[in-house]
C-alpha cells in the first residue's frame, strides 16, 4: 500500500545526496579515524574533522564543542547524567520541563533515584515554559536546567534565549534538547547561550544512528561511555564515520534549503489547518498557534480515538497521542501537562510535514480525514 507520509517529526527519509556522500565510507574508506598510524586512518580522521567543522558551524559552535553520539537519546542522557554527575560536588538539584523528551525526563528520574532532587516545571495550555518559573525553581543547590527548544508532539518552540539568560545569571548549566529544531529552524548555540544541546541526524534527512551533543567550552561532563577515549575522552567508542559524513551532508542541505523549505512547509501546514477546520467539526488545535515548528500540526478530534482514526484513514502514516499508541497506560504526557483533557488527548493526531509532501497530498489527507471522522463519530456512543 502506498502511504502519504506525515510523520516527519518521528523520522525522515535519508536525502539521496546524504546517501551518496556516505556510501564510500562503508567499504572503501572504512578506516578507523583513531588509527592515525597509517594514511587511510589519517584520511578518515581528516574527513571526520572536516565534517565536525561543518556541523559545528551549522549550529553556531566551535568544532571542539561537538561530541558525536549514537543519536539524541544518548546526547540527552550524556547531557543530563554527565553534567549532574560531574557537578555533584556543588549541588544535587536539577530542573526539567514537564514536556521534555523521555530521554531527558527518564535521565532526570534516574538521577533522582541516585540522590538528586528534581523539579519538574509546568507548562501553560500552549505547552510553553514560563521563564519566571525557571528562575523560581533554581536554588543554590541547582546544577542543571533542561528545557527543550521545540516539542516533538505539539511543536511548541520555547523561549530558550530567555531561559539561557536566566541560567547564566544564576550560574547553572542549561541543556537545550534541540532534536526537533536543528535542521528545521535556525538553531545557533552561541546565540541562544545554552551550555549543552542535543541533536540527531535522522530528524532532518540524515542517517539514523548518529547525533551529537554540543558542549560549551570548559563545561565539565562525566562520560557515559568509557574506553578508548575518543571524542576528547567524552564519548569512547569508534566514531561512526559514515554517520558523521551523512550528518554533515544533511547539515549542508539544511543550511542551503531551510529558508525556502520552511516557507513551503508553512504554506502546506496552513492549507492542512484550514482544510481540517473547514471539513471537520469539533476540532481542537494542540500546541501554540504561532510559536511552533513550521512542519508540525497537532489536532484533537472530539469523540474519536486517535488510533482508530489513523486506521480508518488507511493510507496516511501518522501518529497519535492516544494511550493505545503512546505505549503508556495513559494518553500523551505532553498533552496532559498542557491540561488537555484525557478524552481529547486520546483523540489527538500529530501531522508532521516534510519534503515528500505536496498540496495534492494535503488535500487528499483532508478528504480522507473528513470521511474517517464522520464514519467513526457515527459509531460513537458519545455523540
Amino acid at each position: 500500500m502506498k502511504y502519504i507520509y506525515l510523520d516527519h517529526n518521528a523520522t525522515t527519509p535519508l536525502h539521496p545526496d546524504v546517501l551518496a556522500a556516505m556510501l564510500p565510507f562503508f567499504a572503501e574508506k572504512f578506516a578507523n579515524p583513531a588509527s592515525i598510524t597509517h594514511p587511510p586512518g589519517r584520511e578518515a580522521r581528516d574527513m571526520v574533522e572536516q565534517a565536525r567543522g561543518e556541523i559545528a558551524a551549522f549550529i553556531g559552535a566551535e568544532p571542539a564543542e561537538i561530541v558525536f553520539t549514537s543519536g539524541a537519546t544518548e546526547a540527552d542522557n550524556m547531557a543530563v547524567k554527565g553534567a549532574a554527575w560531574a557537578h555533584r560536588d556543588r549541588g544535587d538539584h536539577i530542573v526539567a520541563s514537564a514536556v521534555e523528551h523521555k530521554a531527558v525526563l527518564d535521565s532526570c528520574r534516574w538521577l533522582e533515584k541516585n540522590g538528586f532532587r528534581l523539579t519538574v516545571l509546568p507548562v501553560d495550555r500552549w505547552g510553553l515554559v514560563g521563564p519566571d518559573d525557571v528562575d523560581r525553581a533554581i536554588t543554590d543547590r541547582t546544577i542543571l536546567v533542561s528545557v527543550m527548544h521545540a516539542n516533538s508532539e505539539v511543536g511548541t518552540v520555547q523561549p530558550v534565549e530567555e531561559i539561557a539568560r536566566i541560567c547564566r545569571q544564576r550560574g547553572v548549566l542549561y541543556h537545550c534538547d534541540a532534536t526537533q529544531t536543528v535542521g528545521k529552524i535556525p538553531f545557533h548555540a552561541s546565540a541562544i547561550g545554552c551550555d549543552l544541546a542535543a541533536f540527531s541526524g535522522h530528524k532532518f534527512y540524515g542517517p539514523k544512528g548518529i547525533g551529537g551533543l554540543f558542549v560549551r567550552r570548559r563545561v565539565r561532563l562525566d562520560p557515559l561511555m568509557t574506553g578508548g577515549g575518543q571524542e576528547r575522552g567524552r564519548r569512547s567508542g569508534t566514531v561512526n564515520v559514515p554517520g558523521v559524513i551523512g550528518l554533515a551532508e544533511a547539515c549542508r542541505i539544511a543550511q542551503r534549503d531551510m529558508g525556502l523549505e520552511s516557507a513551503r512547509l508553512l504554506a502546506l501546514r496552513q492549507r492542512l489547518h484550514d482544510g481540517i477546520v473547514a471539513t471537520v467539526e469539533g476540532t481542537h488545535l494542540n500546541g501554540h498557534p504561532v510559536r511552533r515548528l513550521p512542519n508540525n500540526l497537532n489536532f484533537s478530534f472530539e469523540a474519536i480515538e486517535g488510533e482508530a482514526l489513523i486506521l480508518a484513514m488507511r493510507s496516511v502514516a501518522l501518529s497519535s497521542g492516544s494511550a493505545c499508541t503512546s505505549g503508556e497506560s495513559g494518553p500523551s504526557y505532553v498533552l496532559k501537562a498542557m491540561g488537555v483533557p484525557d478524552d481529547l488527548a486520546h483523540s489527538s493526531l500529530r501531522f508532521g510535514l516534510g519534503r515528500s509532501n505536496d498540496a495534492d497530498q494535503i488535500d487528499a489527507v483532508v478528504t480522507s480525514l473528513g470521511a474517517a471522522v464522520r464514519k467513526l463519530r457515527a459509531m460513537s456512543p458519545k455523540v
Partner: protein
Amino acid sequence: MRREDRVRLEGREGQKRRNSVSGVGGGADEMYSQILLEHFENPRNLGEIPSPDAAATERNPEQGDTLRITMRIDGGRIAEARFKAFGCPVTIAAGSLATEMLAGMTIQQALELTDAQVADALGGVPEERIRCSVLVQKVIRRALGSLVAE
C-alpha cells in the same frame, strides 16, 4: 487484567490464525488480523435498538474506550444485538463481532461469553492492545445480569 488472561487472550489459536493471514500492506495491517480489520472497516449491527430489552454501557477509565450494547430478547434468546463504540480499532471490532456472536444465544450462554472468546474469534489481539479490548464481557454481564436476577 490478570497475566493468565492475557496469555489466554493471546492464545495459540489466535496467534496462528493471525500469522496465517497475509496483510494487504504494511504497518497496522500486519498488527491486526484480517478478521479484526474487516469488522473495523465494515462494522455489523451498528447502532442502537429503540426501547431495548437489555442495554449497558461500559467505559474503560484508563483509555476512555466506551462500548454500548443494546439487545432485543425474544423467548429467552437474544434476537438482536446492536453496538456503538468509542475507542481504538480493537474496541470497535470487538463490539461488532460480539453482536454477531450474541444473536441467537440464550441469556445464560451470553453471560458465559468471555473476552478471550471474542479476542480469539477476532483472530487474536496483539498483546499491547489487549488492555483496550476487554469491555465486551463487562457490558454483556451488566446488561443481562439484572434479567437473570429477576
